[in-house]
């Protein structure tokens, strides 16, 4: 057992001091260096930006109800889908799990008092907020219509709007990723509690370690790319524009070199959450711990070698394309291994159908579809037809929303008692998970069909024969909206009216559950000592090994 001694003050005498009630007031929040408070700051921010991005999504879905471009003019529509992408990717998805749950839980899972660099952590939030507000602000005063991918030479020589300003906003908030990545790597290497060896770490930690590697190696590339776009646009120095002697395909290589690994930033943490939730709610250790841990690293590494699969029809060399296609098929394997391992984990488990577990179940289904449809796009033969159609839009929403957002919600519910000291209402949680699952499929499955039929993406006016699929998609989106709004309301409600949470409502393993809910400022009254493997749920029955 863990060598922790917690001092039990009887609840009836006083509310135990924790990180939330230790100080009140705006200054104590805006100048905090407590990783838990910073996690909350991020939680508020990303929830805000999710709402903004969701608002743009609503506009898109409403416009797409009819084949004519009648709700929004072309100029407005092009800005709308651009801002939807920029907001959702840079200001919601990339920070989401790592900056909220990662910040909050990583030190606790390691038995540490805080991250290695608490002030860098606070700086990361400020840099993120300033960048994001600059970008959203520039959207409010005109914005850009380049798409979140801002391909050159359109973005450098032809697009009107505030490309450079928007770029600066994204550039700044990118540093938030870099700071977070540095902090996580240093903390995981240097601040593990005594006895907490690498292979006793929760898989959530492994997932964030792999994510951090991608963050620090990839983000600088997109930062420089944005700067080069600004330099070409403002000073006319030819880098991407052929009129100035540049190469437009160079832009795509530089852009996708980050943006492909970025999608692994946007899924690996979610996979870490799923490992935690599935083990807890089946009361079983993970099947194949080493394989799952190394698969996260494999995804991070191989994920840097596949960017050209976004460029099969770009005019790049066919031989380069073939190599990228081969590596893309290979990078699918570690993800498949994780899914197999999770399935084997619940085998002969003792499963509780809690809200986090239902979200995890939804994740498995939706990630399977999202991941498998990636193979259609990794194969050049089919990608030629499918690229730049709604098929791609459906694919990435399945992995990013059906995957990452579901996993994020699973994690949010799972650790809500720890973070807030309150239980969320269980039945509402399960209902929201189910509604989201059905709403999501209804929204995005028709997009696979209409994409295969040939409907290009980023079109707001389209041939009438595609309308039925767009109408179904919009109907689905209204259900999905309900599914996503519900948690917002009942989680807020729980802050005032939710049942008070015990230290370990789920009877889970993991150091974060050994301290109070909410935790004290420095997480543990005494540094824990670890002597057991991860997920050490008593095996229901273990027989001696027999040689096969």
């Amino acid at each position, binding site marked *: 057992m863990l060598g922790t001694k917690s001092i039990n003050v009887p609840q009836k005498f006083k509310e135990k001091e924790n990180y939330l009630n230790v100080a009140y007031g705006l200054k104590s929040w805006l100048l905090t260096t407590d990783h838990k408070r910073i996690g909350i700051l991020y939680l508020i921010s990303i929830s805000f930006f999710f709402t903004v991005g969701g608002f743009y999504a609503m506009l898109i879905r409403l416009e797409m109800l009819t084949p004519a471009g009648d709700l929004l003019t072309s100029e407005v529509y092009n800005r709308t889908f651009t801002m939807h992408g920029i907001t959702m990717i840079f200001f919601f998805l990339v920070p989401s799990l790592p900056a909220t749950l990662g910040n909050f839980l990583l030190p606790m899972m390691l038995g540490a008092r805080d991250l290695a660099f608490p002030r860098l952590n606070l700086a990361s939030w400020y840099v993120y907020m300033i960048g994001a507000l600059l970008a959203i602000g520039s959207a409010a005063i005109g914005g850009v219509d380049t798409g979140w991918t801002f391909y050159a030479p359109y973005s450098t020589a032809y697009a009107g709007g505030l490309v450079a300003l928007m770029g600066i906003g994204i550039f700044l908030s990118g540093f938030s990723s870099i700071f977070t990545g540095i902090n996580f790597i240093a903390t995981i290497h240097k601040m593990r509690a005594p006895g907490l060896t690498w292979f006793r770490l929760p898989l959530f930690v492994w997932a964030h370690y792999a994510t951090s590697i991608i963050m620090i190696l990839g983000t600088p590339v997109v930062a420089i790319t944005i700067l080069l776009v600004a330099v070409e646009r403002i000073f006319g120095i030819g880098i991407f524009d052929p009129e100035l002697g540049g190469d437009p395909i160079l832009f795509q290589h530089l852009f996708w070199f980050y943006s492909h690994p970025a999608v692994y930033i946007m899924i690996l943490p979610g996979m870490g959450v799923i490992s935690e939730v599935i083990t807890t709610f089946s009361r079983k250790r993970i099947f194949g711990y080493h394989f799952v841990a190394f698969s996260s690293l494999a995804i991070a590494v191989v994920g840097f070698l596949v960017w050209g699969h976004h460029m099969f029809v770009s005019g790049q060399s066919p031989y380069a394309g073939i190599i990228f296609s081969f590596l893309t*098929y290979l990078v699918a394997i570690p993800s498949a291994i994780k899914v197999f391992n999770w*399935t084997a984990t619940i*085998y002969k488990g*003792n499963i509780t159908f809690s809200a986090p577990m239902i979200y995890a179940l939804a994740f498995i289904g939706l990630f399977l579809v999202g991941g498998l449809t990636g193979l259609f796009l990794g194969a050049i*033969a089919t990608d030629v*037809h499918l690229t730049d159609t709604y098929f791609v839009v459906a694919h990435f929403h399945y992995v990013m929303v059906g995957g990452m957002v579901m996993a994020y919600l699973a994690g949010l519910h799972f650790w809500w008692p720890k973070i807030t000291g309150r239980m969320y209402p269980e039945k509402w949680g399960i209902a929201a998970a189910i509604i989201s699952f059905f709403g999501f499929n209804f929204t995005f499955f028709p997009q696979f069909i209409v994409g295969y039929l040939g409907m290009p993406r980023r079109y707001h006016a389209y041939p009438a024969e*595609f309308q039925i699929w767009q109408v179904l998609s919009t109907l689905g989106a209204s259900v999905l909206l309900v599914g996503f709004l519900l948690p917002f309301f009942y989680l807020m409600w729980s802050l005032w009216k939710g049942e008070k949470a015990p230290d370990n409502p789920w009877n889970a393993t993991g150091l974060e559950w050994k301290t109070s809910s909410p935790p004290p400022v420095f997480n543990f009254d005494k540094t824990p000592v670890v002597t057991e493997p991860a997920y050490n749920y008593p095996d229901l029955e273990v027989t001696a*090994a027999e040689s096969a």
Partner: protein
Amino acid sequence: MFDFPILPRQASTIAGQVDVYFWTLVWLSVILGGTVAIIFLFFFIRYRRGSKVNRTLKSNERRERMIEITWTVLPVFLAIGMFGWSTTVYFNMIRPPADAMEIQVIGKQWMWQIQHSNGHREINELHVPVNQPVKLRMISQDVIHSFFVPAFRIKQDVLPGRYTTLWFNATDVGEYHLFCAEYCGTEHSQMTGTVYVMEPADYEAWLAAEGGTTVTGLEGESLSPEASGAALFDQLGCSGCHKPDVRSVGPALGSIFGTTVELESGEVVTVDEEYLRQSILLPNEHVVKGFAPIMPTFEGQVTEAQIINLIAYIKSLKNPNAGEAPPAEPQPAATEAAAPVETPAAAAEEGTPSAEVGAALFAKSGCSACHSVTGDTLVGPPLNGAFGHEVELESGETVTVDEAYLTESIFNPNAKVVKGFVPAMPPFAGMLSEAEVANIVEYIKSLGDQ
């Protein structure tokens, strides 16, 4: 709105191959993914808390590792197999048959300009014959676009600054959507068109008919791309330095298309459409060995459509009897050429050097492009009155312009360059015989003063 299209039409030779692969991948995904999902759901329900089932776990590290390795290795083999098949189909997609008919495409915000080989132009429409391989040569005049015909399962980005190609063989008569598939600005959604696949007879009739814009000449006559290109070649002064079959200031262009040439850098390139286009816009990047980097750029003076026609003209020089015959050798724009003599070489063999013969050779060899005979200083010094005078060389040495000096300057020009001029004159050693050069020298002697 209430018809439910699920499957796109298959209208090209590659569409079937793509669809077989697609549906195989669909079934594999449904079977494998579905199996995993069903197993997961099955365990989820079977092993719920409170269910009375056997949970005895006979776990054994070695067995677990074998399971892990199996479900790692088997998917790798499946992945390699599917990758290999896809690559085979891809090679079919990118290798056009030799008999593909070429059609030019220019994408611009926000329309498609198509030009057929006889000059016939269309906007946002592409008429092609059925069962005939068609190769599109495409370029953009502004941003990146993408040429996408869903029914053919083909797509290729159309780039500024560089040609990209796409080929297909349409198998079904009919009308098909053409979409721009790379976001290109405000009217991206409107940059659409129609591909009309016609019976061969109908296609010929359409091509011959008055419909569709053609390029017109000065008297309003319809010009083929080759003829239009020929006129441009003249107009822009290309003929001043490039002759069809003799080297001049620039290489001869008559039979150069499709051959390989060695560049000044030592690199060997094929003279294809991309090389010709680059040579027009960025001429001094890849200069043919033995020539000076003095060709001016035509950037900003020619449109992509005009470049296409110039290239068509140059290609036609190689095969003057195929298709439209090129016009008679274009008259050089600003030279003092006398009427060309029938066989200057034969005349030169007859013995005494002749100024008349020399004059004809002077014009034919392109000397007048750089050397004026009216006193103007061009790339090279004016030649009227040069004979008999003394000139200072770049080296500081002074020489008399006599027969020997003139002969040496024609065969090995950069040995003794006149002061103030660049060593840019190409050597005519191996290009002109001694007898021919003697005639030229005689001509220069005859120029006297004015």
